C-alpha cells in the first residue's frame, strides 16, 4: 500500500513539475505548481512528518502560490496575447541540457553510492512535540532571527512594490 502511494505521489510530483517547467501558458504552469506542492505534502505524510505537511500546504499553497498567481495577473496582459512565455535560444538550450545532465547524474550517483547508515524506521506518534521543544530550547535564536527576517522582508516588499 505504501509503495503504491509513494509511486502515485512521485508520478504526480514529477509530472506536474514537468508541466510547470515546459508549459507554454504561464497560467497552466502556476496551476500545475499546485499539484506539485500537494504531491510533496503527500510525500511528507508518507514520511510521518505531519506538521511539516500541514505547514507545506499552508505556506506554499496558501501563501506563495497565491502570491505567484497575483504576480502573473499583475504582470501579463490577459487580454492580449502576452500570456504565452517563451524559451531561450538554441545555444542556451544545449548548454543548459549539458549542465542539467551533469547535475542529475552526479546527484543520483552520490545518493546511490554513499553507504547510508541503515536504521530502523521509527514511527513517531506525532512530531509536533519534538519540533516545539526544539524550537523553544535549542533553536530559539534562529527562530527569533527568522521572525525578524520575515518582518524585514514584509516591509521591504511593500516598499519596493508600492507606486511612487
Amino acid at each position: 500500500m505504501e509503495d503504491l502511494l509513494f509511486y502515485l505521489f512521485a508520478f504526480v510530483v514529477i509530472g506536474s513539475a514537468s508541466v510547470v517547467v515546459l508549459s507554454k501558458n504561464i497560467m497552466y504552469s502556476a496551476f500545475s505548481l499546485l499539484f506539485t506542492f500537494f504531491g510533496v505534502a503527500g510525500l511528507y505524510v508518507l514520511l510521518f512528518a505531519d506538521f511539516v505537511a500541514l505547514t507545506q500546504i499552508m505556506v506554499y499553497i496558501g501563501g506563495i502560490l497565491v502570491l505567484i498567481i497575483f504576480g502573473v495577473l499583475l504582470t501579463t496582459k490577459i487580454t492580449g496575447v502576452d500570456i504565452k512565455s517563451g524559451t531561450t535560444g538554441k545555444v542556451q538550450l544545449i548548454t543548459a541540457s549539458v549542465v542539467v545532465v551533469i547535475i542529475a547524474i552526479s546527484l543520483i550517483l552520490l545518493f546511490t553510492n554513499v553507504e547510508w547508515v541503515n536504521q530502523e524506521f521509527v514511527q513517531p506518534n506525532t512530531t509536533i512535540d519534538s519540533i516545539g521543544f526544539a524550537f523553544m530550547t535549542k533553536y530559539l535564536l534562529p527562530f527569533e532571527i527568522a521572525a525578524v527576517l520575515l518582518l524585514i522582508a514584509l516591509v521591504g516588499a511593500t516598499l519596493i512594490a508600492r507606486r511612487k
Partner: protein
Amino acid sequence: MLETIQMEYYLILSAVLFTIGTIGVLTRRNAIIIFMSLELMLNAVNLSLVAFSSYYGDSAGQIFVFFIMALAAAEAAVGLAIILSLFRLKKTVYVDEVNIFKW
C-alpha cells in the same frame, strides 16, 4: 511498514525534482516561471531533508525545513515585488530584455 521503500527512493525523487527545477531556471525567459522553478528546487531540498529526518529519527531535519520555508516565503514576497516594479519600469518580465546593466 515502509520496509520496501528505501530512503534512496526519496533521495532520487528529490534529485529528479531538483533537476527539473534547474531546467526551468536555465531555459525559460519569463521571470515568474524562473521563480516557480526556484520554488521547485527548494521543495526538492526540503523533501530530502524530511526523508533524512524521518529515516534517522532526528527532528533537526524538519526544523531546517521550517527555516527554509520561512526563507522561501520572504524570498517570494521580495522577488515578486521586484518583478512587479520591473514590469512597471520596462513593461516586460522577460529576463533577456532587461539588460540595463549590459553595455
